[in-house]
């Protein structure tokens, strides 16, 4: 698992990169009540706002971590946004991306580096 400064996790699944938010991010957001997912088959650039998460407190964005194509989104989150709090690093993944070169993931933090970031 790799991690971004925006508190997203990235997991390689075959040719795809699965993206979600970390336990730390889910706790900071509070109870999630609404998730807006992107359309599948969307080309995105790193830094694009691709999802919206609304918690009881506020709205926040999930950014595309890398350039690529969103090929699948987790529709379960639309019906049950609370999954983000229950299982942020497992069943509550947000989307899967196809990217040109999985090697770009090496630029992101590993677990130790991320734990250091959140201190």
């Amino acid at each position, binding site marked *: 698992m790799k991690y971004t400064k925006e508190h997203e996790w990235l997991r390689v699944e075959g040719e795809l990169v699965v993206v979600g938010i970390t336990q730390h991010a889910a706790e900071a957001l*509070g109870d999630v009540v609404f998730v807006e997912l992107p359309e599948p088959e969307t080309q995105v650039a790193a830094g694009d706002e691709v999802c919206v998460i609304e918690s009881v407190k506020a709205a926040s964005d999930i950014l595309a971590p890398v350039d690529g194509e969103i090929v699948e989104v987790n529709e379960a989150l639309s019906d049950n946004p609370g999954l983000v709090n229950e299982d942020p690093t497992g069943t509550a993944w947000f989307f899967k991306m196809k990217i040109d070169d999985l090697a770009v993931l090496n630029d992101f933090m590993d677990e130790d580096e991320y734990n250091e970031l959140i201190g």
Partner: protein
Amino acid sequence: MSDLKRLALHDLHVALGGKMVPFAGYEMPVQYGLGVMKEHLHTRAAAGLFDVSHMGQVILRPKGSYQDTALAFEGLMPVDVLGVAEGRQRYGLFTDQAGGILDDLMFANRGDHLFVVVNAACKEADVAHMQAHLSDTTEVIAVTDRALLALQGPQAEAALARIVPSVAAMRFMDVAQLPSGYGELWISRSGYTGEDGFEISVPEAGAGALARALLDMAEVEAIGLGARDSLRLEAGLCLYGHDIDTTTSPVEAGLTWAIQKARRAGGAREGGFPGAARILRELAEGPARLRVGLRPEGRAPMREGTELFTHDGTALGQVTSGGFGPSVEAPIAMGYVPHGQAEIGTTLQGEVRGKRLPVTVAAMPFQPTTYKR
């Protein structure tokens, strides 16, 4: 947060795992370990304890007769003060010359004087306002050595009655001054969640022990400001500075129930409050706009500041409070729209992140209230 004031129970909030945030000049717990959603649902299911000590407590002590003080107080509000019986509390609001709302408040007839509770952000201005207008008849005394706790929910009575048994006999909006092991408690059967419950003014010296005693009871949990906000929103209650302020009149805000007959046209003490010309005219003719309840379709909350439109794109107004209602399990909001768009069932559009989404004007409260009348 060095410029912020601390509550008398600050250390207790921190010990309970409260997440402290700035609010109205104070460090306040926005939530505890349960989180906003569970705290909200716990309050509706059992009992929640809120520290609202940031609010202003004020005694209005007559220099002459109680009646003179009550009548002078009526000079600041479109409210029947004189008609409030001893041992009873009423909702009031200070208006300005333009008919806007300076603050909303609770006041109680305690026999030989009045006890007033005002919003934290307004309390200094309110005390100055009262001193400026009531000093001929009344001594205005800010009470600064007492905490204020709210115990809300269906099991609030059972919990508080273990400490002060006589509260079980109180009805909604009754007040009483009762001795206890924590000092004299000033209790009202009221609150701001839509639930039955109590607000308890307690000497600061006894406040921590009283809070601990309540929190030690199985049905009571500490509840933060986050859930206080979602609870009051579900109950359709206004938050000063958001849903009401000097730009909104009581009639626009749908608070006409707070303007009793005695102060209306033809009443025994008609007018005689700041902004009476506008407020009496709006009572007679209807206001140009009204505060309404709003139910967004789907799950996306429409938060404060969301712009409202008709289907053909005419701008109508804004959401003044909005979020997710944990008990109604849907997004809810309130806001102002022109009179012609205010009928329940009218479908409007609210702009969320550049998209216009359907939203329906709905009855309030969103969640039935359970006051013990």
